[in-house]
């Protein structure tokens, strides 16, 4: 317990990774590219609602900042959710086998 928990450092690394998100390539990804090239991109439908659509936090002028904010929020949510899910479903046996 004396040294910092390893996962706290790892989470900071994940947040650092998320804050590089404005540098990501904005080209279409593999499936989008194929959909465009093969002419079926138009059958895709918009989502019925938007929260942080396309990883851009709404209402922020600076798009890089909006993207970083979306990334940081998502990273924290995913840590919390997956940690929580794992904690809930984990084995309740005394000593988990090695």
């Amino acid at each position, binding site marked *: 317990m004396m040294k910092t928990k390893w*996962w706290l450092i790892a989470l900071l690394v*994940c*947040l650092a990774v998320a804050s590089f998100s404005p540098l990501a*390539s904005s080209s279409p*990804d593999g*499936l989008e590219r194929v959909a465009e090239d093969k002419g079926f991109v138009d059958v895709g439908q918009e989502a019925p609602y938007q929260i942080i659509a396309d990883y851009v936090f709404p209402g922020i002028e600076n798009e890089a900042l909006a993207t970083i904010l979306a990334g940081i929020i998502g990273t924290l949510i995913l840590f919390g959710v997956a940690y929580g899910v794992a904690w809930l479903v984990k*084995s309740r046996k005394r000593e*988990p086998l090695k």
Partner: protein
Amino acid sequence: MHIPDGFLNVGTVAATFVVSAGGLGNAVRVANKKLGEKHVPLMGILAAFIFAAQMLNFPVAGGTSGHLIGAALAAILLGPWAAVLIMSCVLIAQSLIFQDGGLLALGANIFNMGIVASFSGYYLYRLFVSMLGENRRSQLVSSFVGAWGSVFLASIVCAIELAVSGTSPIQVALPAMAAVHTLIGIGEGLITGAVLSLVLATRADLLQLQKV
């Protein structure tokens, strides 16, 4: 490779939802038996890392980009069922909150990038480690192969779903998806190898956790 709504027909949506729900149910059951205290923070970290890394699209040839899926990485570190749980968390959050991947297509996305990618990545990795030996270099090479194969296979399955849905004929969708993901898979392999190498250098004991 997140499928938006509209690309899949009702039958494919229903079939993939049933299969993914079954897979997720089994993942919970297996985790309930094998997942221990020490797995818990790693599950959170992997989900957080995969979400963050998926935002970093890297360019591949011809005005196209790709991003990490991460299923192979999660499966190599924690086992395929744990990886299915992690990928489901990531894909559900991306669909519900970030409008990446359709709501109706969620079953297919969990099937492709969760189940297919986790199991293919995991067993390709194990197969290559068993052939090459249990040393650092072999683990890194095997992780590259597993990660590459996971992307390639997921893209094949995705092409089949598009074809079955009548969105794009198989002779069109399959070669196109396979070709572009052959390249994107290289990125997946390099990132997976790099992260595994970092884990081996700093917390090699994490690799000794029981696989779930």
